[in-house]
């Protein structure tokens, strides 16, 4: 599953890996549904799709492409009743900024990548919340805001660790037996 450089570069820059797009869109759907599935009193705005988006942007996984990032943001806009284009633009900017630093981020430890991810993801959450506040006139309490930031912030290290465990499991499974 790890991105192969020769294949990555051969792909057109507009549309990336379909599998990466499916995973990111699934994360977007789960994040939209998450508050409703957890319970009636759970009120937060989770942007779980930012984690796979970040991983693809820095080349940790197959690329998703700017169109994929834009489409994911648009789906989030449509399903959360946010003004159309807000999350689409935010996700696109997030993907672009993370992609710019891909070369320097790829080989650093997870904690440093996470530190880079946190402010970017926080900005996306902030933009979304600000747009919703301006549109609906409602508000967000401090616990809700903290829950939103924690859910979004933890998504990347959790997903990254899961992917790494899966990769190690596969590598162990395909190791050739000694004769």
């Amino acid at each position: 599953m790890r991105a192969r450089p020769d294949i990555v570069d051969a792909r057109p820059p507009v549309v990336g890996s379909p599998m990466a797009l499916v995973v990111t869109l699934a994360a977007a759907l789960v994040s939209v549904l998450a508050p409703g599935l957890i319970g009636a009193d759970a009120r937060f705005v989770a942007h779980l799709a930012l984690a796979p988006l970040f991983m693809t942007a820095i080349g940790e996984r197959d690329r998703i492409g700017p169109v994929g990032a834009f489409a994911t943001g648009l789906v989030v806009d449509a399903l959360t009743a946010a003004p159309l284009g807000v999350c689409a633009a935010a996700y696109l900017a997030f993907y672009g900024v993370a992609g710019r630093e891909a070369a320097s981020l790829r080989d650093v430890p997870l904690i440093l990548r996470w530190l880079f991810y946190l402010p970017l993801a926080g900005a996306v959450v902030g933009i979304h919340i600000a747009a919703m506040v301006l549109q609906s006139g409602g508000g967000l309490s401090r616990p809700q805001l903290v829950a939103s930031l924690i859910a979004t912030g933890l998504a990347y290290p959790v997903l990254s660790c899961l992917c790494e465990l899966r990769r190690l499991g596969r590598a162990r499974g395909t190791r050739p037996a000694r004769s």
Partner: protein
Amino acid sequence: MLRNRPKSLRRWSRGAAARRGSGGPRKGGLAVGIYTALFGASALLFALDITDHRSAHVTRQAITDAAAPALTAVTGSVSTVRAWFDEARGLVILSREVERLRAENDSLREFERQAHELEARAARYEALLRLQPDDGGHVITARAIADLKSPFTRSLIINAGESDGIAQGNAVLGAEGLIGRVIEAGVNSSRVLLVNDLESRIPVHVGVGRHRSILAGTNAYEPTLMHLPPGANVHDGDTVATSGEGQILPPGLAVGQVRVGDNGAVSVALASDPEGSEFVRVYNSGFPVDVAAGAPPLPGILAEAATIADALAVSISPADAAGSGEASDGARPVP
């Protein structure tokens, strides 16, 4: 191993060069063009949406329609897991529930007897008044495939749309009463604005005095009543039903009961839990939605404002004002 090293080194260096900047805006003109076009598209969509342009609604509904199968799958699979947890939790509290239900059963028997009595009495009154039965409308049962809760909105997506006979403005009912109305009807899915959403405003009648009021969502669990007539005689437990004013929802749909707080704040305990409904009934009564046939539909917020203004204009008509002046307790006669 040694033979492979130069090859892998070459591959690494080629990969590193290729990966550099991968995913981000390419330095080439094509990448800049793509990013510019996408940001432009975002700005265009945003502009269309905030001006309430029809194409923005169409885009949003098309995306919802496309996502409906995936939402169904995700909701279904996760709901199964949640159902297991709920079942386990239910077993723990089962014994306490049995005791409570036994006591409740005794009181319900008494209520049942009273209900039968009232039913028979209502039948006699209907016969006396020669009431015509409700003719129009049909009910479509649909499943809530996505419960879109957030601090800002209370809405559902249901798996039925125009192809099933659902239209914008249709009332959406839970097991016991009104929970919302259809605000966007797609081909196979529809978006339902719940009555406790901040943007929801529904003209209602309150209590036996049928005081006109507006049921206003606050994003809290229970909506409130706005624009109650001064001195309206409203008590805890008074029934709240749609009035039909504003020509959005048909009259007489049960909504809930009045709950007067300790500080005097009036809220409505909804008859049906709007956020716990897995299956809903959409009532297409054929009730007119647009004021003038053939006129272009008003943008959502303007239509909402027109509805409220219409209801308010009715509630402060001169005849009513005179009537309220005569009534000592502020209660107005039913028109």
